[in-house]
């Protein structure tokens, strides 16, 4: 029994001994497994490895790093445990080989044992992490008034970029003070960078870092602070300038619109056109004085008044007989607006310049012949032409004072025709066409016109152009004057004067005759009641005629014709180019007055029918007498044959 009890007690003691040391063994153990955390090389020439120790096992633990190079079984231990700090191993240049694979292991060992870490293969080329760039400098610079930041730096002094051993690329970041967002900029291999688009008056932070071709980014450099100066005032001035500019533009535009408002108004609302009559004064109309209006319409200078020189010479009255439809009405008064002047049954031709040539009548060839003849006689009558011109002018002016219009009214009712003014109005252009040298054609027309009056047969052809016929009538009357021999004493004042007169009459007659001769026209029974007496002969050998008032009363617009012989008709031209005039005895009266004076002669006829009765009157005329008449004109024509050029 005692023996068994003793064995149990020994067993218990042994068990106790066992447990006690075990209890102490839990506090002491092998060191934990260390682990290599990282290996870094700052310049690709040295590198450092750091490890993390495991649990130490309660006992002091030592760590050792062993490495093996590529293709070598030699195990080396870390040469430097202290340079890089605790739990690190620093490999200096001699121990570092580039492009060589390192197999590194860390061993932790304590009293109980050692523990190996997992091996790590590294190649130094790929573990390069440079130091941050150094000497980072930030300055504010200006570019055309706008500021920008210029950041410059240098590579870490350890990294050898000069020899080309390491190539670094850089990156920087900027942010405003107080904000959280960084603005990143990659700078490449350059060591300088510009930052634009800055806020005026802002405070900025700048940092730079670098990286090799294949490696890790360095840490950011320490922040560099910079303050951008204020340029707000410049911005404001720009805005002010822009505002002023636009205000200016606006002013100009509004001013232009204001200037053109009137024209714009016209464009949008065109005004109603008012009456546009020349000489018409709206104000007068508004005033309500119609007389003034109408008087204003009247052209004051029509008919043109002559100079005072010719007033004495102007013939006051003339009576011209125009057969049949062509009765010329002459009035002294200016009131020609009544219908008396209106032609009957004939169209008026305002263009009184046109000759009968325009009408497609027989006179076409006559005009041509007359034209030729005129030219021949031009030279002859050049001297007397001036005289005739003056006479003509005088007569014209006189006539124009009496008439306003170029109207011929073959008024049959009136026995007398007054065409003097109207007919002569266009005549100044032609003056004494045979004497002067107007356009020959026009003169021919004139002559034709005058011719037309004479032949009764061709009267109808000229009805269409009464205006011209009036001219012709006047011409005939003119020629009548020239050829009248009513007052022979007047025509024979003096030999020289007579010569002049004769010459004048020559020309006249010749002119007339030329017109008349080819036509073979008879002188119409146009009787001139008023004759011109020779007044004086001036120093230029010009005969100044004097209007001789007729014995009859100067009735108002009444022209009376005396009975007399009329030599204004050319019977023909003989072979010697001598004009053969026809003497007619004018037994008819042509009176403008409504057939008042019918006591002139027994052969009076109503004015209405005077024109129509021209034919019968003509027939009643005496036969042509080819002899010297009492009046010198006609006779002299026959006496003095006209040379033909």
């Amino acid at each position: 029994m005692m023996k068994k009890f003793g064995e149990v007690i020994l067993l218990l003691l042994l068990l106790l001994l066992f447990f006690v040391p075990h209890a102490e063994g839990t506090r002491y153990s092998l060191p934990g497994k260390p682990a290599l955390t990282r290996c870094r090389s700052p310049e690709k020439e040295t590198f450092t490895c750091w490890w993390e120790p495991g649990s130490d096992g309660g006992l002091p633990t030592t760590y050792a790093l062993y490495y093996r190079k590529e293709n070598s079984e030699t195990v080396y231990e870390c040469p430097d445990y202290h340079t890089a700090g605790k739990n690190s191993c620093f490999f200096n240049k001699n121990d570092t080989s580039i492009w060589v694979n390192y197999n590194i292991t860390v061993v932790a060992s304590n009293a109980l044992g050692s523990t190996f870490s997992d091996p790590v293969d590294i190649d130094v080329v790929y573990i390069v992490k440079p130091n941050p760039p150094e000497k980072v400098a930030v300055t504010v610079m200006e570019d055309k008034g706008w500021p920008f930041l210029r950041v410059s730096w240098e590579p870490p002094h350890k990294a050898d970029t000069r020899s080309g051993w390491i190539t670094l690329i850089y990156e920087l970041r900027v942010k405003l003070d107080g904000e959280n967002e960084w603005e990143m900029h990659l700078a490449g291999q350059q060591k300088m960078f510009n930052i634009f688009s800055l806020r005026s008056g802002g405070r900025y932070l700048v940092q730079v870092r670098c990286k090799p071709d294949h490696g890790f980014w360095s840490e950011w450099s320490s922040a560099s602070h910079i303050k951008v100066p204020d340029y707000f005032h410049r911005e404001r001035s720009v805005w002010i300038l822009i505002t002023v500019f636009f205000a200016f533009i606006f002013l100009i535009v509004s001013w232009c619109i204001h200037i053109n408002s009137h024209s714009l108004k016209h464009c949008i609302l065109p005004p109603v056109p008012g009456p546009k009559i020349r000489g018409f004064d709206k104000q007068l109309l508004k005033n309500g004085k119609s007389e003034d209006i109408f008087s204003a319409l009247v052209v004051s200078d029509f008919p043109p008044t002559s100079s005072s020189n010719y007033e004495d010479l102007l013939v006051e009255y003339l009576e011209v007989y125009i057969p049949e439809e062509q009765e010329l009405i002459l009035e002294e008064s200016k009131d020609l607006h009544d219908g008396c002047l209106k032609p009957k049954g004939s169209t008026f031709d305002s263009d009184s310049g046109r000759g009968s040539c325009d009408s497609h009548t027989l006179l076409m060839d006559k005009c041509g012949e007359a034209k030729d003849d005129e030219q021949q006689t031009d030279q002859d009558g050049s001297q007397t032409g001036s005289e005739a011109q003056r006479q003509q002018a005088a007569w014209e002016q006189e006539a124009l004072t009496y008439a306003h219009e170029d109207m011929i009214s073959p008024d049959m009712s009136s026995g007398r025709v007054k065409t003097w003014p109207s007919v002569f109005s266009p005549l100044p252009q032609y003056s004494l066409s045979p004497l002067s040298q107007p356009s020959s054609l026009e003169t021919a027309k004139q002559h034709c016109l005058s011719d037309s009056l004479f032949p009764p047969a061709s009267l109808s052809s000229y009805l269409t152009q009464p205006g011209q016929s009036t001219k012709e009538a006047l011409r005939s009357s003119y020629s009548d004057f020239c050829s009248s021999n009513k007052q022979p004493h007047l025509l024979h004042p003096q030999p020289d004067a007579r010569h002049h007169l004769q010459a004048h009459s020559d020309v006249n007659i010749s002119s007339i005759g030329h017109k008349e001769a080819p036509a073979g026209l008879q002188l119409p029974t146009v009787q001139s009641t008023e004759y011109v007496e020779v007044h004086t002969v001036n120093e230029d050998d010009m005969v100044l005629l004097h209007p001789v008032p007729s014995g009859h009363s100067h009735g108002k617009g009444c022209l009376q014709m005396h009975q007399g012989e009329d030599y204004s008709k050319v019977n023909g031209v003989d072979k010697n180019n001598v004009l053969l005039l026809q003497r007619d005895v004018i037994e008819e009266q042509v009176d403008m007055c409504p057939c008042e004076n019918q006591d002139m002669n027994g052969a009076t006829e109503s004015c209405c029918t005077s024109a129509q009765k021209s034919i019968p009157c003509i027939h009643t005329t005496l036969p042509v007498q080819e002899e010297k008449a009492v009046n010198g004109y006609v006779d002299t024509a026959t006496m003095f044959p006209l040379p033909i050029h």
Partner: protein
Amino acid sequence: MRQSARLQTILDLTAVDAAPLCTNAQAGCHVLSLANLFDRVIQHSARMHGISNDLHSEFELYFLPSKNQIGRVSRNCHTSSILTPNGKENAQRMAREELTEVILKLLVAWRDPLWHFHQSMAHHHDFNNFSSNKSLEMSDMVHELRKGVQKVVEKMQMLGIISNSVSNLASPEALLASDSAEWRLMKDYDLLYCFRRDSNKVQNYLKILKCRIVPEHGC
């Protein structure tokens, strides 16, 4: 597109050098053109290294589950016979001609292996087209880079910077020497690993050479 552009730069490099831009009297012009040549070559080598790096990473990702395989220390590149400087001091201590020769040797050594690697890549159905194109481009780049470096060497020799001792590595003998069967034993992954390193060496050596010969242009 970029890769083709990079290839083009090398081609331009060779073409440009055919027609000399500088007259003999202008020394500065020669130096400038040499610096430009160096820049182009370095750029090209950087591009090459980038491709090899990408390919290697891709390989590691898809074909090797564990990155760190202990026991694969017997990684033996076929170019390990070529003595290359392993440090900056070693590289700087090396003569220009030696360094140039090392570069050329490396480039020559890798021409055929990369071509075959590309061929094997093409038959691998696992590889995508992108990787296959990269391997082809890599292979072309090595070829063009060698030509470029040859041009640089010729230029340097013309300028008298280096002696004419640099042998013409394009000779058939050199090709035969490099054409050893060692690389055929290498596996694809090891090949990529080795080439990635060698392309980095080439790039680095070229930079060292440039900054030693024409230091004032971007060093």
